[in-house]
Protein backbone atom coordinates (compact mmCIF):
# COMPACT_ATOMS: atom_id res chain seq x y z
CA UNK A 1 0.00 0.00 0.00
CA UNK A 2 2.84 2.34 0.81
CA UNK A 3 4.22 1.87 -2.68
CA UNK A 4 1.42 4.00 -4.10
CA UNK A 5 2.78 6.99 -2.27
CA UNK A 6 6.36 6.46 -3.34
CA UNK A 7 5.47 5.81 -6.99
CA UNK A 8 2.43 7.94 -7.64
CA UNK A 9 1.05 9.14 -10.95
CA UNK A 10 3.12 7.71 -13.87
CA UNK A 11 1.87 4.16 -14.24
CA UNK A 12 -1.50 4.69 -12.59
CA UNK A 13 -3.47 5.19 -15.79
CA UNK A 14 -1.95 2.05 -17.26
CA UNK A 15 -2.87 0.07 -14.16
CA UNK A 16 -6.37 1.48 -14.26
CA UNK A 17 -6.73 0.58 -17.92
CA UNK A 18 -5.45 -2.94 -17.27
CA UNK A 19 -8.05 -3.34 -14.55
CA UNK A 20 -10.79 -2.11 -16.89
CA UNK A 21 -9.75 -4.44 -19.70
CA UNK A 22 -9.52 -7.34 -17.31
CA UNK A 23 -13.03 -6.77 -16.01
CA UNK A 24 -14.34 -6.61 -19.60
CA UNK A 25 -12.59 -9.79 -20.69
CA UNK A 26 -15.61 -12.08 -20.11
CA UNK A 27 -17.83 -9.92 -22.36
CA UNK A 28 -19.24 -12.16 -25.09
CA UNK A 29 -20.58 -9.31 -27.22
CA UNK A 30 -24.23 -10.33 -26.91
CA UNK A 31 -25.37 -6.70 -27.05
CA UNK A 32 -27.81 -6.88 -24.13
CA UNK A 33 -26.15 -3.81 -22.60
CA UNK A 34 -26.58 -1.69 -25.72
CA UNK A 35 -30.17 -2.83 -26.22
CA UNK A 36 -30.96 -1.91 -22.62
CA UNK A 37 -29.21 1.43 -22.50
CA UNK A 38 -31.63 4.40 -22.56
CA UNK A 39 -28.85 6.67 -23.80
CA UNK A 40 -27.28 4.45 -26.49
CA UNK A 41 -29.08 6.52 -29.14
CA UNK A 42 -26.93 9.49 -28.19
CA UNK A 43 -23.60 7.62 -28.00
CA UNK A 44 -20.98 7.63 -30.75
CA UNK A 45 -20.22 3.99 -29.94
CA UNK A 46 -22.75 1.77 -28.18
CA UNK A 47 -21.68 0.19 -24.90
CA UNK A 48 -21.05 -3.17 -26.61
CA UNK A 49 -18.85 -1.50 -29.25
CA UNK A 50 -16.97 0.37 -26.55
CA UNK A 51 -16.17 -2.87 -24.68
CA UNK A 52 -14.97 -4.44 -27.95
CA UNK A 53 -12.62 -1.56 -28.67
CA UNK A 54 -11.17 -1.94 -25.20
CA UNK A 55 -10.90 -5.73 -25.44
CA UNK A 56 -8.95 -5.37 -28.68
CA UNK A 57 -6.69 -2.74 -27.20
CA UNK A 58 -7.95 0.28 -29.14
CA UNK A 59 -7.76 2.32 -25.98
CA UNK A 60 -7.26 5.69 -27.63
CA UNK A 61 -10.23 5.16 -29.94
CA UNK A 62 -12.36 4.13 -26.99
CA UNK A 63 -11.35 7.19 -25.00
CA UNK A 64 -11.82 9.46 -28.02
CA UNK A 65 -15.34 8.16 -28.72
CA UNK A 66 -16.36 9.50 -25.33
CA UNK A 67 -19.60 7.48 -25.06
CA UNK A 68 -19.04 7.17 -21.33
CA UNK A 69 -19.96 10.83 -20.93
CA UNK A 70 -23.46 9.95 -22.15
CA UNK A 71 -23.96 7.32 -19.44
CA UNK A 72 -26.49 8.42 -16.82
CA UNK A 73 -25.51 5.67 -14.34
CA UNK A 74 -28.92 4.00 -14.56
CA UNK A 75 -27.40 0.53 -13.94
CA UNK A 76 -29.71 -1.17 -16.46
CA UNK A 77 -26.79 -2.69 -18.34
CA UNK A 78 -25.17 -3.89 -15.10
CA UNK A 79 -28.41 -5.50 -14.00
CA UNK A 80 -28.98 -7.31 -17.27
CA UNK A 81 -25.51 -8.33 -18.46
CA UNK A 82 -25.59 -12.13 -18.60
CA UNK A 83 -21.92 -12.18 -17.61
CA UNK A 84 -22.56 -10.07 -14.54
CA UNK A 85 -19.99 -7.44 -15.49
CA UNK A 86 -19.80 -4.17 -13.50
CA UNK A 87 -20.48 -2.02 -16.55
CA UNK A 88 -21.72 1.16 -14.86
CA UNK A 89 -18.58 1.23 -12.75
CA UNK A 90 -16.48 0.74 -15.87
CA UNK A 91 -18.20 3.78 -17.40
CA UNK A 92 -17.24 5.85 -14.34
CA UNK A 93 -13.68 4.51 -14.41
CA UNK A 94 -13.42 5.54 -18.08
CA UNK A 95 -14.59 9.06 -17.19
CA UNK A 96 -11.87 9.29 -14.55
CA UNK A 97 -9.28 7.99 -16.95
CA UNK A 98 -10.30 10.30 -19.80
CA UNK A 99 -10.20 13.31 -17.49
CA UNK A 100 -6.67 12.38 -16.43
CA UNK A 101 -5.18 11.24 -19.75
CA UNK A 102 -6.83 13.67 -22.14
CA UNK A 103 -8.03 16.65 -20.11
CA UNK A 104 -7.93 18.81 -23.24
CA UNK A 105 -10.42 16.52 -24.98
CA UNK A 106 -12.93 15.96 -22.21
CA UNK A 107 -14.33 19.42 -22.77
CA UNK A 108 -17.40 20.42 -20.86
CA UNK A 109 -18.12 16.91 -19.70
CA UNK A 110 -15.53 16.64 -16.98
CA UNK A 111 -16.12 20.24 -15.95
CA UNK A 112 -19.54 19.57 -14.45
CA UNK A 113 -18.39 16.67 -12.28
CA UNK A 114 -15.25 18.51 -11.26
CA UNK A 115 -17.16 21.68 -10.37
CA UNK A 116 -19.64 19.58 -8.43
CA UNK A 117 -16.91 18.05 -6.30
CA UNK A 118 -15.23 21.41 -5.77
CA UNK A 119 -18.54 22.63 -4.40
CA UNK A 120 -18.67 19.65 -2.02
CA UNK A 121 -15.09 20.30 -0.96
CA UNK A 122 -15.82 23.94 -0.19
CA UNK A 123 -19.20 23.66 1.50
CA UNK A 124 -19.31 20.09 2.82
CA UNK A 125 -22.86 19.83 1.50
CA UNK A 126 -23.83 20.72 -2.06
CA UNK A 127 -24.99 24.33 -2.35
CA UNK A 128 -26.95 24.40 -5.57
CA UNK A 129 -26.97 28.09 -6.39
CA UNK A 130 -23.23 28.39 -5.75
CA UNK A 131 -22.73 25.25 -7.85
CA UNK A 132 -24.52 26.65 -10.86
CA UNK A 133 -22.68 29.96 -10.58
CA UNK A 134 -19.26 28.34 -10.55
CA UNK A 135 -20.29 25.93 -13.31
CA UNK A 136 -21.18 28.88 -15.54
CA UNK A 137 -17.96 30.68 -14.64
CA UNK A 138 -15.82 27.62 -15.37
CA UNK A 139 -17.57 26.83 -18.63
CA UNK A 140 -16.97 30.38 -19.85
CA UNK A 141 -19.89 29.91 -22.23
CA UNK A 142 -21.82 33.11 -22.70
CA UNK A 143 -25.01 31.29 -23.70
CA UNK A 144 -25.08 28.50 -21.13
CA UNK A 145 -26.47 30.57 -18.26
CA UNK A 146 -29.32 31.64 -20.53
CA UNK A 147 -30.23 28.03 -21.18
CA UNK A 148 -30.71 27.62 -17.45
CA UNK A 149 -31.99 31.11 -16.71
CA UNK A 150 -35.74 30.41 -17.05
CA UNK A 151 -35.44 27.51 -14.62
CA UNK A 152 -33.24 29.54 -12.29
CA UNK A 153 -35.82 32.30 -12.15
CA UNK A 154 -38.63 29.85 -11.46
CA UNK A 155 -36.66 28.18 -8.68
CA UNK A 156 -35.89 31.60 -7.25
CA UNK A 157 -39.59 32.47 -7.37
CA UNK A 158 -40.35 29.26 -5.46
CA UNK A 159 -37.83 30.15 -2.77
CA UNK A 160 -35.73 27.15 -3.71
CA UNK A 161 -32.48 29.01 -4.25
CA UNK A 162 -30.65 30.81 -1.53
CA UNK A 163 -27.16 31.86 -0.59
CA UNK A 164 -24.81 29.05 0.36
CA UNK A 165 -25.09 27.74 3.90
CA UNK A 166 -21.84 27.72 5.88
CA UNK A 167 -22.67 25.13 8.52
CA UNK A 168 -20.40 22.44 7.05
CA UNK A 169 -18.01 24.77 5.26
CA UNK A 170 -14.46 23.41 5.08
CA UNK A 171 -15.54 20.25 6.92
CA UNK A 172 -14.26 17.96 4.16
CA UNK A 173 -11.00 19.76 3.41
CA UNK A 174 -8.88 17.22 5.33
CA UNK A 175 -10.63 14.26 3.78
CA UNK A 176 -10.18 15.63 0.24
CA UNK A 177 -6.49 16.30 0.88
CA UNK A 178 -5.98 12.86 2.28
CA UNK A 179 -7.83 11.16 -0.59
CA UNK A 180 -5.68 13.04 -3.11
CA UNK A 181 -2.48 11.57 -1.68
CA UNK A 182 -3.71 7.99 -1.95
CA UNK A 183 -3.76 7.43 -5.71
CA UNK A 184 -6.41 5.57 -7.69
CA UNK A 185 -6.15 1.86 -7.06
CA UNK A 186 -8.99 0.67 -9.24
Amino acid at each position, binding site marked *: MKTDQTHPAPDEPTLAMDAIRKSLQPCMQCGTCSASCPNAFAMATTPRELWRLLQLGFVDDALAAGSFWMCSSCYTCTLRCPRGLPLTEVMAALRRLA*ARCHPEKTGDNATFYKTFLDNVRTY*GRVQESALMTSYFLTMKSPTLPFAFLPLGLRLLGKGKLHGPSGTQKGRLEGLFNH*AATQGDRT
Partner: protein
Amino acid sequence: MKYAYYPGCSLRESAQEFDVSVRAVMERLGTEIEEIPDWTCCGASAAESVDHNLSLALPARNLALAEKAMPGLDVLVPCSACYLNLLKLQRNVLADKSVMAQTNALLGDEGLAYTGKTGRVRHLLDVLLNDIGPEAVRAKVEKPLHGLTVAPYYGCQILRPYRVFDDPERPSSMEPILSALGAAIHPWTMGGRCCGASLMATHKEAALVSVGEILRAAAAAPPDGQEDEAGGGADVIATVCPMCQMNLDAYQKQALREGGLGVAGRPVTVLYLSQLIGLAFGLSAQQVLLEKNLAVTEAFREKLVHPKELSTAAVTTA
Protein backbone atom coordinates in the same frame (compact mmCIF):
# COMPACT_ATOMS: atom_id res chain seq x y z
CA MET B 1 -39.20 2.38 15.46
CA LYS B 2 -36.20 4.68 15.32
CA TYR B 3 -33.92 5.50 12.41
CA ALA B 4 -30.67 7.36 11.81
CA TYR B 5 -31.76 9.92 9.25
CA TYR B 6 -29.58 10.94 6.30
CA PRO B 7 -31.44 13.68 4.38
CA GLY B 8 -28.69 14.43 1.85
CA CYS B 9 -27.87 17.78 0.27
CA SER B 10 -30.82 18.11 -2.12
CA LEU B 11 -33.35 17.85 0.68
CA ARG B 12 -31.75 20.92 2.22
CA GLU B 13 -31.80 22.79 -1.07
CA SER B 14 -34.24 22.48 -3.97
CA ALA B 15 -36.05 19.48 -2.49
CA GLN B 16 -37.13 20.95 0.85
CA GLU B 17 -40.67 19.71 0.23
CA PHE B 18 -39.33 16.14 0.31
CA ASP B 19 -37.58 16.63 3.66
CA VAL B 20 -40.50 18.45 5.26
CA SER B 21 -43.09 15.92 4.10
CA VAL B 22 -40.96 12.92 5.08
CA ARG B 23 -40.54 14.27 8.60
CA ALA B 24 -44.24 15.09 8.93
CA VAL B 25 -45.40 11.74 7.59
CA MET B 26 -42.95 9.66 9.62
CA GLU B 27 -44.01 11.46 12.77
CA ARG B 28 -47.69 10.70 12.08
CA LEU B 29 -46.75 7.09 11.54
CA GLY B 30 -45.20 6.96 14.98
CA THR B 31 -41.58 6.54 13.90
CA GLU B 32 -38.70 8.51 15.30
CA ILE B 33 -36.01 9.88 13.02
CA GLU B 34 -32.79 11.37 14.30
CA GLU B 35 -30.53 13.20 11.90
CA ILE B 36 -26.95 11.92 11.68
CA PRO B 37 -24.92 14.66 13.38
CA ASP B 38 -22.41 16.54 11.19
CA TRP B 39 -23.35 14.61 8.02
CA THR B 40 -21.83 15.75 4.70
CA CYS B 41 -22.39 15.09 0.99
CA CYS B 42 -22.37 11.41 -0.08
CA GLY B 43 -20.59 12.26 -3.34
CA ALA B 44 -23.77 12.16 -5.44
CA SER B 45 -23.16 10.93 -8.97
CA ALA B 46 -20.05 13.08 -9.32
CA ALA B 47 -17.51 11.52 -6.96
CA GLU B 48 -17.13 8.24 -8.80
CA SER B 49 -16.56 10.10 -12.06
CA VAL B 50 -13.72 12.15 -10.59
CA ASP B 51 -11.94 10.30 -7.81
CA HIS B 52 -12.35 6.71 -6.70
CA ASN B 53 -11.04 7.40 -3.19
CA LEU B 54 -13.64 10.09 -2.63
CA SER B 55 -16.38 7.79 -3.90
CA LEU B 56 -15.45 5.53 -0.97
CA ALA B 57 -14.66 8.14 1.65
CA LEU B 58 -17.66 10.46 1.24
CA PRO B 59 -20.41 7.91 1.88
CA ALA B 60 -18.25 6.09 4.45
CA ARG B 61 -17.85 9.22 6.53
CA ASN B 62 -21.61 9.44 6.98
CA LEU B 63 -22.03 5.79 7.87
CA ALA B 64 -19.12 6.06 10.29
CA LEU B 65 -20.83 9.03 11.97
CA ALA B 66 -24.06 7.04 12.24
CA GLU B 67 -22.18 4.08 13.66
CA LYS B 68 -20.56 6.30 16.27
CA ALA B 69 -23.62 8.29 17.32
CA MET B 70 -26.38 5.72 16.82
CA PRO B 71 -24.91 2.23 16.71
CA GLY B 72 -27.28 -0.44 15.48
CA LEU B 73 -29.93 1.87 14.02
CA ASP B 74 -30.96 1.42 10.40
CA VAL B 75 -30.06 4.43 8.27
CA LEU B 76 -33.12 5.96 6.60
CA VAL B 77 -32.43 7.67 3.27
CA PRO B 78 -35.18 9.35 1.23
CA CYS B 79 -33.01 10.34 -1.77
CA SER B 80 -32.43 7.48 -4.21
CA ALA B 81 -28.96 8.63 -5.29
CA CYS B 82 -27.75 8.99 -1.69
CA TYR B 83 -29.37 5.65 -0.88
CA LEU B 84 -27.42 3.84 -3.57
CA ASN B 85 -24.13 5.53 -2.66
CA LEU B 86 -24.45 4.56 1.00
CA LEU B 87 -25.75 1.07 0.21
CA LYS B 88 -23.02 0.36 -2.34
CA LEU B 89 -20.32 1.46 0.08
CA GLN B 90 -21.79 -0.64 2.86
CA ARG B 91 -21.94 -3.72 0.63
CA ASN B 92 -18.42 -3.24 -0.73
CA VAL B 93 -16.90 -2.68 2.69
CA LEU B 94 -18.66 -5.66 4.25
CA ALA B 95 -17.80 -7.94 1.32
CA ASP B 96 -14.11 -7.13 1.15
CA LYS B 97 -11.82 -6.52 4.11
CA SER B 98 -9.27 -4.73 1.92
CA VAL B 99 -11.92 -2.20 0.84
CA MET B 100 -12.75 -1.67 4.50
CA ALA B 101 -9.09 -1.06 5.30
CA GLN B 102 -8.64 1.28 2.36
CA THR B 103 -11.79 3.20 3.24
CA ASN B 104 -10.98 3.54 6.92
CA ALA B 105 -7.46 4.67 6.11
CA LEU B 106 -9.11 7.61 4.32
CA LEU B 107 -11.29 8.42 7.34
CA GLY B 108 -8.56 8.07 9.93
CA ASP B 109 -7.68 11.76 10.15
CA GLU B 110 -11.01 12.47 11.80
CA GLY B 111 -10.72 9.47 14.08
CA LEU B 112 -13.65 7.85 12.30
CA ALA B 113 -14.02 4.27 11.11
CA TYR B 114 -16.82 2.36 9.47
CA THR B 115 -16.96 -1.26 10.52
CA GLY B 116 -20.56 -2.09 9.60
CA LYS B 117 -21.93 -1.99 13.15
CA THR B 118 -24.69 0.34 12.11
CA GLY B 119 -27.86 -1.28 10.87
CA ARG B 120 -28.89 -1.57 7.25
CA VAL B 121 -29.08 1.29 4.77
CA ARG B 122 -32.77 1.65 3.99
CA HIS B 123 -34.68 3.63 1.41
CA LEU B 124 -37.80 5.46 2.56
CA LEU B 125 -39.96 3.31 0.30
CA ASP B 126 -38.52 0.10 1.79
CA VAL B 127 -39.27 1.35 5.31
CA LEU B 128 -42.82 2.42 4.39
CA LEU B 129 -43.57 -0.91 2.76
CA ASN B 130 -41.81 -3.36 5.04
CA ASP B 131 -41.40 -1.77 8.48
CA ILE B 132 -44.56 0.31 8.65
CA GLY B 133 -46.76 -1.47 6.13
CA PRO B 134 -49.70 -0.39 3.96
CA GLU B 135 -52.24 -1.19 6.70
CA ALA B 136 -50.65 1.22 9.18
CA VAL B 137 -50.57 3.81 6.41
CA ARG B 138 -54.25 3.21 5.63
CA ALA B 139 -55.14 3.63 9.30
CA LYS B 140 -53.87 7.23 9.25
CA VAL B 141 -55.69 8.31 6.09
CA GLU B 142 -58.14 11.13 6.73
CA LYS B 143 -58.66 12.44 3.22
CA PRO B 144 -58.48 9.50 0.81
CA LEU B 145 -57.13 10.38 -2.63
CA HIS B 146 -60.23 9.05 -4.39
CA GLY B 147 -60.48 9.96 -8.03
CA LEU B 148 -56.75 10.58 -8.30
CA THR B 149 -54.74 8.43 -10.71
CA VAL B 150 -51.07 8.16 -9.76
CA ALA B 151 -48.21 6.95 -11.95
CA PRO B 152 -45.62 5.39 -9.60
CA TYR B 153 -42.18 6.44 -10.80
CA TYR B 154 -39.20 4.63 -9.27
CA GLY B 155 -36.29 5.81 -11.41
CA CYS B 156 -33.02 3.93 -11.38
CA GLN B 157 -31.08 3.84 -8.21
CA ILE B 158 -33.52 2.30 -5.75
CA LEU B 159 -34.04 -0.58 -8.17
CA ARG B 160 -30.59 -1.22 -9.61
CA PRO B 161 -28.10 -2.77 -9.54
CA TYR B 162 -29.19 -4.44 -6.27
CA ARG B 163 -32.48 -6.26 -5.82
CA VAL B 164 -33.34 -5.20 -2.31
CA PHE B 165 -37.06 -4.70 -1.83
CA ASP B 166 -38.50 -4.63 -5.33
CA ASP B 167 -38.20 -6.22 -8.75
CA PRO B 168 -35.85 -4.03 -10.80
CA GLU B 169 -37.57 -5.01 -14.05
CA ARG B 170 -41.20 -4.72 -12.90
CA PRO B 171 -41.22 -2.51 -9.83
CA SER B 172 -44.44 -2.40 -7.81
CA SER B 173 -43.46 -1.50 -4.24
CA MET B 174 -45.25 1.86 -4.33
CA GLU B 175 -48.59 0.38 -5.35
CA PRO B 176 -49.75 -1.00 -1.98
CA ILE B 177 -48.96 2.38 -0.38
CA LEU B 178 -50.78 4.38 -3.07
CA SER B 179 -53.77 2.02 -2.88
CA ALA B 180 -53.84 2.50 0.88
CA LEU B 181 -54.16 6.23 0.24
CA GLY B 182 -57.23 5.58 -1.92
CA ALA B 183 -55.55 6.51 -5.20
CA ALA B 184 -55.87 4.61 -8.48
CA ILE B 185 -52.66 3.31 -10.10
CA HIS B 186 -51.79 4.31 -13.65
CA PRO B 187 -50.81 1.11 -15.47
CA TRP B 188 -47.55 1.77 -17.26
CA THR B 189 -44.14 0.27 -17.89
CA MET B 190 -42.02 3.41 -17.55
CA GLY B 191 -41.71 3.34 -13.76
CA GLY B 192 -38.12 2.14 -13.83
CA ARG B 193 -36.99 4.12 -16.85
CA CYS B 194 -34.07 6.51 -16.28
CA CYS B 195 -34.90 10.25 -16.23
CA GLY B 196 -31.47 11.14 -17.60
CA ALA B 197 -30.07 12.10 -14.19
CA SER B 198 -27.18 14.53 -14.40
CA LEU B 199 -27.19 14.42 -18.20
CA MET B 200 -29.73 17.22 -17.79
CA ALA B 201 -26.77 19.44 -16.83
CA THR B 202 -24.25 18.13 -19.35
CA HIS B 203 -26.26 16.82 -22.33
CA LYS B 204 -29.68 18.31 -21.99
CA GLU B 205 -30.81 17.27 -25.48
CA ALA B 206 -30.41 13.58 -24.57
CA ALA B 207 -32.02 13.90 -21.15
CA LEU B 208 -35.02 15.74 -22.62
CA VAL B 209 -35.78 12.71 -24.79
CA SER B 210 -36.00 10.44 -21.73
CA VAL B 211 -38.07 12.95 -19.78
CA GLY B 212 -40.40 13.49 -22.74
CA GLU B 213 -41.03 9.77 -23.13
CA ILE B 214 -41.77 9.32 -19.44
CA LEU B 215 -44.17 12.28 -19.35
CA ARG B 216 -46.01 11.15 -22.45
CA ALA B 217 -46.42 7.64 -21.06
CA ALA B 218 -47.76 9.09 -17.81
CA ALA B 219 -50.32 11.17 -19.67
CA ALA B 220 -51.31 8.43 -22.10
CA ALA B 221 -54.53 6.47 -21.80
CA PRO B 222 -54.07 3.00 -20.35
CA PRO B 223 -53.65 0.39 -23.11
CA ASP B 224 -56.93 -1.44 -22.55
CA GLY B 225 -58.90 1.76 -22.98
CA GLN B 226 -60.10 2.05 -19.40
CA GLU B 227 -60.46 5.83 -19.52
CA ASP B 228 -60.30 7.72 -16.29
CA GLU B 229 -61.13 11.26 -15.31
CA ALA B 230 -57.71 12.58 -16.20
CA GLY B 231 -58.73 12.10 -19.82
CA GLY B 232 -56.94 8.78 -19.86
CA GLY B 233 -53.70 8.81 -17.98
CA ALA B 234 -52.25 9.92 -14.68
CA ASP B 235 -53.04 13.12 -12.78
CA VAL B 236 -49.80 12.92 -10.90
CA ILE B 237 -46.45 11.16 -11.02
CA ALA B 238 -45.16 10.02 -7.61
CA THR B 239 -41.38 10.15 -7.21
CA VAL B 240 -38.93 9.20 -4.47
CA CYS B 241 -35.82 10.97 -5.77
CA PRO B 242 -34.98 14.69 -5.93
CA MET B 243 -33.16 14.34 -9.24
CA CYS B 244 -36.07 12.54 -10.92
CA GLN B 245 -38.50 15.04 -9.45
CA MET B 246 -36.51 18.01 -10.74
CA ASN B 247 -36.00 16.53 -14.20
CA LEU B 248 -39.65 15.56 -14.66
CA ASP B 249 -41.08 18.67 -13.02
CA ALA B 250 -38.90 21.58 -14.08
CA TYR B 251 -38.19 20.59 -17.67
CA GLN B 252 -41.74 19.58 -18.66
CA LYS B 253 -42.43 22.33 -21.15
CA GLN B 254 -39.12 21.88 -22.89
CA ALA B 255 -39.32 18.08 -22.85
CA LEU B 256 -42.81 18.02 -24.29
CA ARG B 257 -41.76 20.46 -26.98
CA GLU B 258 -38.25 19.22 -27.83
CA GLY B 259 -37.93 15.74 -26.35
CA GLY B 260 -38.19 13.71 -29.54
CA LEU B 261 -41.21 12.27 -31.32
CA GLY B 262 -42.81 15.67 -31.78
CA VAL B 263 -45.94 14.35 -30.07
CA ALA B 264 -47.80 16.88 -27.99
CA GLY B 265 -48.12 15.97 -24.35
CA ARG B 266 -50.04 17.46 -21.49
CA PRO B 267 -48.57 18.68 -18.22
CA VAL B 268 -48.56 16.24 -15.30
CA THR B 269 -48.09 17.11 -11.66
CA VAL B 270 -44.93 15.54 -10.18
CA LEU B 271 -44.95 15.09 -6.40
CA TYR B 272 -42.91 13.23 -3.84
CA LEU B 273 -44.61 10.10 -2.54
CA SER B 274 -44.34 11.58 0.96
CA GLN B 275 -46.27 14.68 -0.15
CA LEU B 276 -49.11 12.50 -1.43
CA ILE B 277 -49.13 10.53 1.80
CA GLY B 278 -49.17 13.78 3.77
CA LEU B 279 -52.13 15.12 1.78
CA ALA B 280 -54.02 11.86 2.37
CA PHE B 281 -53.22 12.10 6.08
CA GLY B 282 -55.05 15.42 6.11
CA LEU B 283 -52.03 17.72 6.03
CA SER B 284 -52.66 20.95 4.16
CA ALA B 285 -51.06 21.87 0.84
CA GLN B 286 -48.93 24.35 2.83
CA GLN B 287 -47.81 21.69 5.30
CA VAL B 288 -46.41 19.52 2.50
CA LEU B 289 -44.99 22.60 0.72
CA LEU B 290 -47.03 22.03 -2.43
CA GLU B 291 -46.18 25.57 -3.51
CA LYS B 292 -42.57 24.43 -4.05
CA ASN B 293 -43.49 22.06 -6.88
CA LEU B 294 -43.29 23.75 -10.25
CA ALA B 295 -45.79 21.94 -12.45
CA VAL B 296 -48.86 21.51 -10.21
CA THR B 297 -51.83 21.49 -12.60
CA GLU B 298 -55.19 23.13 -11.95
CA ALA B 299 -56.90 19.78 -12.58
CA PHE B 300 -54.84 18.27 -9.77
CA ARG B 301 -55.67 21.07 -7.33
CA GLU B 302 -59.33 20.75 -8.23
CA LYS B 303 -59.28 17.02 -7.44
CA LEU B 304 -57.61 17.65 -4.10
CA VAL B 305 -60.38 20.03 -3.10
CA HIS B 306 -63.18 17.92 -4.53
CA PRO B 307 -62.33 14.24 -4.27
CA LYS B 308 -64.31 12.06 -6.65
CA GLU B 309 -66.64 10.37 -4.17
CA LEU B 310 -67.81 13.63 -2.69
CA SER B 311 -68.53 15.26 -6.03
CA THR B 312 -70.50 12.27 -7.36
CA ALA B 313 -72.44 12.17 -4.09
CA ALA B 314 -73.22 15.86 -4.53
CA VAL B 315 -74.45 15.24 -8.07
CA THR B 316 -76.79 12.42 -7.06
CA THR B 317 -78.37 14.33 -4.19
CA ALA B 318 -78.85 17.46 -6.28
